[in-house]
Structure formats: C-alpha cells, structure tokens
C-alpha cells in the first residue's frame, strides 16, 4: 500500500510537471497550429538561467529575474523565428521551431561545457515532507495545486478578458479575426509570454525535484508534454492537464513493474490507441475538411 501510494505520488508529481509544459504547447498550437518544439528547451534554458543567476544574487531576486528572462526569451524566439514565417508553409514554421530547439541545446552545451549543472536549493520547496509513509518534497505536493490554480486562472483569462476573446477568435479563424481588427501579433506574443512564464515556473518546480540540468534535460519532458497535449486534444487546456496527469501516472505504474524498459513506449502506445478511436484526442475539436 505504502509502495502504491509512493508510485501514485511520483506519478502525480511527474504529471504536474508535464502539465505545466503542456499548457504552453497547447496554447501555442491552438492559436498558431504550430508544434513549438523549442518549448521544452525554453524550459531547460530557464533552469540553466536559474543556476547562473542564483550564483550572482540572492534567490528572492534571482527567481523573479528567471521569470522575466524566460519570458523575454520566449518573446524573442517568437519575434525572430516564427513571426517572419507567418505566411510560409506550416512545415517551415515547424522546422524553424526544430532549429530553435537545436540552437538552444547546442548553446547550452557550449556554455555549460557539457557538464551537468546542479540547481540551487530553494527553501521550503526542496524541504522534505512525509505522506503516507513516503518521504517527498514540498515541490511535489505543491505542483498539482499550482497546476489546478493555473488552469482556472487561464480559463478565466480566456473566457472573460479581452485578450482571451482575441485569442479565441484567432484560434477559430486567423484571417477573419485579422479583418475584424484584432492585432494578431500582440495576441500571439501574449500567448508566448504566458507559455514561457509557465515554463519558467515549471522549471523551478521540476529542477528543485530533479536538480541536475543537462542540455537535453528539456527534451524528454518536452516530448512527453507534447504527447500529453495531443492526448488531451491539442488546443484544449484542461485536456492537456488531464492528459499530462494520465501520462505521468501510467508511466510510473509501468516503472513499478518488471517491464520498466517500456515506460516510455507505453505512453506512446496509449496515445496511439486514443488517437485511433478518437482521432483528435480526448477533448479535441473535430476538424472539418475545407475544400
């Protein structure tokens, strides 16, 4: 029982981390129809920035600065790498995202010299707490609540505010909303800013829990979060979050059996099964063919 609780706990912890990244994926996809492959790497860079910044200044200054720098990075990436390609084929934009992901990973390798960096300990978040006989960190407990709060906040933002309305309009029909006088570029920038901010927060929780950062540290969470977003139906925020938790828990259940080799494979198998029966994911909108 104690063991099962611990597995579930890890599952929820991991799922929560994936959820924070998956929201960024799904929001960008909803608006631009772009799989932002660089998102996982933005997450990694946020971690690295945290490492370097915290050596120069106290944590209470460093963490907000990490947030600001990550948001700036997300904003710049969008302006430099995606905006000029707005009228290009979709494939080109995606390739640009892959290119940015390459650039971030390679730059991180260059800067760190390929050595794993260790994340600073954040007071409280990295303290240990025992739940049902299983020791765990506060970051683990906190993540799911934070995710839920964020989901509520974001859905409010999207449903109630003007920016949110613009986002919905752009997601529905790019051209028409442009004709209606919506400033597409600011809406897209807002989306990237929100996504990057979430990635920065996610990186603080994630690397507090798993404190060693390598240049590829963002690749796996990024891919998993992407799978979670597809799983829940790309474009749907609650879908992405639910997908992330399901994937996190399933993965850890497999890790607790003797088929540990397949812990990644099972994620994908699950995804394929879902897609075969529900081709646009759990909560995805059904796409209609336009002739």
């Amino acid at each position, binding site marked *: 029982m104690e063991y099962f609780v611990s597995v579930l706990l890890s599952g929820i912890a991991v799922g929560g981390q994936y959820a924070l990244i998956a929201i960024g994926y799904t929001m960008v996809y909803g608006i631009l129809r772009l799989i932002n492959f660089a998102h996982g790497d933005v997450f990694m860079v946020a971690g690295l920035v945290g490492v370097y910044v915290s050596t120069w200044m106290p944590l209470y200054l460093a963490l907000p600065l990490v947030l600001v720098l990550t948001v700036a990075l997300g904003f710049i990436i969008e302006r430099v790498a995606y905006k000029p390609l707005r009228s290009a084929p979709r494939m080109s934009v995606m390739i640009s995202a892959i290119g940015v992901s390459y650039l971030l990973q390679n730059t991180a390798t260059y800067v760190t010299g390929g050595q*794993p960096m*260790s994340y600073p300990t954040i007071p409280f978040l990295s303290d240990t707490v025992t739940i049902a006989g299983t020791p765990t960190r506060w970051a683990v407990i906190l993540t799911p609540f934070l995710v839920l709060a964020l989901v509520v906040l974001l859905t409010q933002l999207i449903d109630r505010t003007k920016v949110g309305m613009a986002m919905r309009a752009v997601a529905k029909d790019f051209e028409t909303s442009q004709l209606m006088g919506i400033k597409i570029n600011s809406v897209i920038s807002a989306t990237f800013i929100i996504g990057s901010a979430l990635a920065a927060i996610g990186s603080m929780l994630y690397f507090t829990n*798993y404190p060693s950062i390598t240049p590829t540290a963002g690749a*796996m969470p990024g891919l998993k979060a992407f799978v979670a977003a597809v799983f829940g139906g790309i474009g749907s925020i609650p879908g992405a979050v639910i997908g992330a938790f399901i994937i996190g828990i399933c993965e850890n259940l497999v*890790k607790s059996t003797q088929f540990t080799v397949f812990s990644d494979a099972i994620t994908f198998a699950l995804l394929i099964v879902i897609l075969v029966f529900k081709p646009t994911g759990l909560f995805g909108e059904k796409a209609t063919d336009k002739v």
Partner: protein
Amino acid sequence: MKMKRFVALAAAAAMSVSALAGCSSSSTAASGSAAAGSSASGDKVVKIGVFEPSTGDSASGGKKETLGMQYANAETPTVEIGGETYTVELVYADNGSSTDKAPSAAAELVSQGVSLVLGSYGSGVSIAGGPVFDDAGLAAVGVTCTNPNVTAGNDYYYRICFLDPFQGTVLANFAKDKFDAKVAYCLGETGNEYDQGLIAYFTQAFEAAGGTVVTASFPTNNSDFSTYLNQAKNEGADVIFTPVSIAYATQIIQQAAALGIDAAFLGSDTLDDNMVLAAAEGTDVQLYVSTFYQEGGSPEFDEGVKAYINENAEAMTNNGGNDTIAAVTAMGYDAYYVALEALKAAGSTDPAAVKAALAGVTYDGVSGHIAFDEEGDAIRDTAYIKHSTNTGAWELETQQTVAQ
C-alpha cells in the same frame, strides 16, 4: 521569383565556398605540421589522437580523462623516437558520447594524421570508432572502456583498464562480503551497453553466490527515479547497483537522499566522480564504487595534478570545480605514458610500426603495472573499492582481487 531563386542558389554556393575556404585554412594549418612531421621551428612533431567525449552524457568523465592526458603532456611534452626528439601534440575529436557521431569523430583524428589514438571514456563509442581506426591501420588504446567487446575479436584496440566481467564480479562479491546481501536491485539505462553489460555480469556473480537480483532500466533522459528507488525499497533490496553515467548517478543519489533509502549504493568506475561525490555530500546515502585508482596511490602524481588543476582555470572547470582526483584522470595520465612507450618502442611515428610495437609495451603507471594479454587487454586483477565519506571525499574501503 526568378531573382529570388538565383539569390538562393548564389547564397548556397557562397556558403559552401566560404565553408570550404574555412576548412582549407584549417587543414593547411594542420597539414603543415602533420605531412612533413615538422613545424616552422624545426622541431619534429608527433600527434596523438584524443578520442574522448566532451559533449553528451559522458562529457564529464571524458573531460576528466582528457585532463590526465593534458597533465601528462604538460609534464612530458617531448619524446625520443629513433634518436630524435619529437614534440607531442594532442589532437582532440569529440565523439559526443554517441555511437552515431563516433565514426566521423574517429575519421577526423585519422585525417589529422595521428600516430595512435587514446580513448574513449565509454565503451560504446570506442566500439563504434574502432573500425575507422582499423581501416586506417591505427592502433587505439582504450583508457577506461571496460566492455569486453572493445578489444574482443580485433587486433587494433588495446586497453589499460580492467574489464566488466571482472568489475561485475568484484562488486557482487563485495556486496556479499560486506553487507551479506540477499537481494540486489540493479538499475541501468535502457539500451546502454555499458550499464546493461555490467548488470549482466553482476547478476551472474550475485546469483551464483545464492542472491536474488531485481533488474530495472530507465529510458534515456529520464530524471524521475523515485519510483525505481521506492521499488527497490519495496523489494527489500540490501544493495542497489547503479552502473550509470554521471548525470544520472547524481540524480539517483540526490533523490535517494530525499527518499531516505537505507540500502547501500554500489557503483562502477563511472560513479568515481566528484559530481557524484558532491551529490552525496551531507546526505545519509551509503555509496561504494569500484575504481582504478585511489588518491594517495602515488603522492607525487596527486600533488602534481592538483597543482596543475589549481593553476589552470579551464582544467578546474573540466574537473567539476574542485581538485578531487578522479580515477579516470590517473588512467588518462597512464595512457599517455603508455603511448609514449609505444612510440619509443616503435622507433618511428608510422602508425603501423606503433601498432606493431604496442602489444609488447609494459609500463609501471600510477594505477599499477600495465601489460597487454593476447586480446589486447591489460592484465589486471585488482580493483579498488572506496566509499563516500559524505563530507566530499572518498575513503579507500578495500582492494578486491579476483582470479581471472
């Protein structure tokens, strides 16, 4: 449309021309010394290839191993070959810790005209790079690649370290002797021949001694190990065997400390690293590793290399920010001298002559006596086992010997 296409082509052409220009400039710089074997000042130069990872999973270990060679090179920068003094130049190629980048990195060393190759840290890249050295008629000296397949069935790869069957057995015996372990939990990276090979030998030896083994493997780039560690706890493991690369090892140790795992951790030579040591610092984790060298084995070497690390900022960074000596550094140091011995014995910088001479080379290094058997493996029967004091240092636990 037309114009744009033209510009595109022109730019592509310009790109390739400029890149070619860049390459030719570098290769002329390189060939000036390699082709004639002499540089402007008239000194003869012999090139030794350093085939080590400086990016990827094994970067940290590869850099420490390279550090040993660089220190040895700084200590002895020349060698007498056939009555003439040659300056030794180390030529580096990053194999990226990955078996698909290794062949082209190996080809890079070959194209630079090296006389022989040292490395690599990590067995997979050594096996992948080997055929390229073979095609070029070069010999390679493996420094800490412990997988049997590096040297098995070929005449071009030699190595100065012990092998996995030996290391696995040593650790299994140690688990039995020291902890009277009944159940061992083995955790390795999926699809990594180093991890899985060691686990297989450990399992063989441990089960032969009447123990039970539970194995698990984690996917590449995994960072959440809590489920594995809880599983080990749940299975009642007395020891946890984790022959994984450094980045994973630090994660595992840190998470084990947070989870309060009591079982002792056994690690292979890769865990003998000051980053792992730093992860264990200030925790209650029991960490034991088998390795090639223990600080204090050669005080003269220890002092020299520490001074070298402290003087050189880059060396300090490569060593992970402090001057704890990794065993791989000692091995890299020995490997350099083995290479010099081979060059002396060959009496020439010709790769074929060096390769022929290498089999007969013997050398007394800081990590012990080095001689090769007919497979090209070092004849070694001793491994050091040391444990982390959790105050940032290693302490020698025991020396284990197994009749091979």
